């Protein structure tokens, strides 16, 4: 998938067959984690590349340039990089002020602080006035593991989704993140971009050339059940689909990378063409992807069998991320077990 032209005329499922195969290979070899495709960590490099030809790109962070690797940007564009210290509210409002002068500020900090500490600034200073601020909310969900609930962001999609004129999206891997950053240069208004912890295994073997905010990606066709996943849960959802297929089920997998605007068409097609829908997200089941899909299904009186899978209204346990994903059944085996139980 090196350019748009190679995609023309191809069926979408055919295009992504290669993608799913690559992801499968990663899971089998265990090499996925070691690969270079890491969302939070490619942003600095990709933005530096974009800034080479786009003078509007500036980057801000709150004493986390080494954690989010935005220092890959500051080393190449030091005069377009601003470290605002541990003062997220000021950083986000200042980014909005910069945007009002014609710049496109990318603001990186932990998702918990960006979304909760900076919520009013995102809403009132970025979204409401239509400022082209891009929030890079990294280490989202429970990916900071044993750092604990102060550092977890399991409510951010619910909060952000309620804000008018705000695009809300979740990057699956480094390649999709690059596509999102490129597309964001032409996106009107503000963007909340939810990222993992920078070790996310690859789902897209190349930068998807046909990425578009608001258009879900059908990674795999199927007719028995549709798994709709976003961000960090897309890779394990593909793994779960593989397990379920070995049990004789036909599983559709949608990468719902954009939570707002939501791809209603893809959801309604899944409701019409498959027997059940399960949403999977590293987020509370209240108000995030699952809530958003439920609203669409209810508004259209679909009646399809439906289950939200995620974190059920609790502060999660202390533990390493991998252990937490196992415990909360957000890894491939866990998702497969949840789907199997639901369908039975």
């Amino acid at each position, binding site marked *: 998938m090196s350019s748009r032209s190679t995609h023309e005329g191809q069926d979408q499922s055919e295009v992504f067959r290669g993608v799913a195969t690559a992801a499968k290979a990663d899971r089998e070899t265990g090499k996925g984690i070691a690969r270079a495709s890491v969302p939070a960590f490619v942003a600095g490099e990709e933005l530096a590349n974009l800034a080479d030809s786009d*003078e509007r790109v*500036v980057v801000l962070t709150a004493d986390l340039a080494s954690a989010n690797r935005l220092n890959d940007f500051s080393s190449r564009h030091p*005069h*377009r990089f*601003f470290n*605002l*210290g541990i*003062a997220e*509210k*000021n950083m986000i*409002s*200042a*980014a*909005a*002020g*910069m*945007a*009002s*002068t*014609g*710049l496109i*500020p990318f603001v990186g900090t932990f998702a918990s602080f960006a979304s909760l500490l900076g919520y*009013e*600034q995102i809403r*009132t*200073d970025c979204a*409401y*006035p*239509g400022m082209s601020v891009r929030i890079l909310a990294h280490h989202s969900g429970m990916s900071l593991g044993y750092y604990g609930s102060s550092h977890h962001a399991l409510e951010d999609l619910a909060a952000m989704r309620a804000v008018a004129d705000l695009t809300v999206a979740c990057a699956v891997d480094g390649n999709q993140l690059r596509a999102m950053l490129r597309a964001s240069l032409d996106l009107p208004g503000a963007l909340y971009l939810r990222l993992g912890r920078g070790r996310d295994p690859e789902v897209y073997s190349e930068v998807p050339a046909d990425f578009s905010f608001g258009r879900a990606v059908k990674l795999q066709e199927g007719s028995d059940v549709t798994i709709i996943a976003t961000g960090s849960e897309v890779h394990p959802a593909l793994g779960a689909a593989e397990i379920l297929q070995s049990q004789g089920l036909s599983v559709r997998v949608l990468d719902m990378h954009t939570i707002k605007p939501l791809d209603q068409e893809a959801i309604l097609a899944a409701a019409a063409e498959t027997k059940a829908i399960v949403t999977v997200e590293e987020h509370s089941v209240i108000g995030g992807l699952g809530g958003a899909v439920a609203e669409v299904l209810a508004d259209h009186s679909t009646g399809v069998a439906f289950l939200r899978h995620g974190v059920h209204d609790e502060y999660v346990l202390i533990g390493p991320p991998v252990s937490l994903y196992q415990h909360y059944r957000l890894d491939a085996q866990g998702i497969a077990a949840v789907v199997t139980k639901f369908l039975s």
Partner: protein
Amino acid sequence: MNQSATIDRLVDRALFIRLETLRLSRIAGAGHYSGTFSAAELLAVLYYHQLRLDPLRPDWPDRDRFVLSKGHAAIGLYPVLADLGYFEPSELDDYTRLGSAFGDHPDMRKIRGIDFSSGSLGHGLSIGVGMAMGARVQGRDYRTYVMVGDGELAEGQVWEAVMSASHYRLESLVCIVDRNRLGIDGPTEEIMTAEPIDERFGAFGWDVQRINGHDLGAITGAFDRINSSTSDRPHVLIADTIKGKGVARMEGDVHWHVGNLNAEDYAAVEQELREGTIR
């Protein structure tokens, strides 16, 4: 224009701001009288003397920026923008009525000449920091002015912005504190101590001036000093003012933060404003 004529003109425009505040409050049924009256001279000097503007080009990239962080004084700013030609004065006739562009707090997406939306106190100085950074990144020489209230200084974000402005040596940033000494619940020094405002800004590395915010000569003089400054520090103008200035019943009375005159009182208040002389 000589000094005396300049001051006469500013006196007239400050009166205009107060009279228009009276008129628009009557349309809305209530208004932020006293916090607008305290800022009338400051707004007059900014818009009729200091700011580099072109009302015919509200998006001019090199214009000076003004952020009214104490957005509840917008009722005094809208008439100024209309007077300067940003929009037709008649557009204010349905101030705050259903569908109007003009609410209690300014919306930059609806009103020509508003450089940034405001209303939630504590944000504006950060917005100004970003505008000043934007000037630096793009090599532009405009200045950014932000007017904050004194009660607003209790917002922690203000001090995040103060810190970042001096850290980045944003010499093009000017903060104006309308020090009218009253919040909604009473004197600021009883609600949350603001003083010593000058020492606080100074300790953060700002260039500090403190003046009488109703003395037009003092205000223009302070701006003259900023205009000729070679300091690389951000500038703060702490303007000691009287909340409700110009109307005896409102001066220093917390109850007029948001007030509503009786219909029979408008004429008397208008007469009082016209007869009073604030220089």
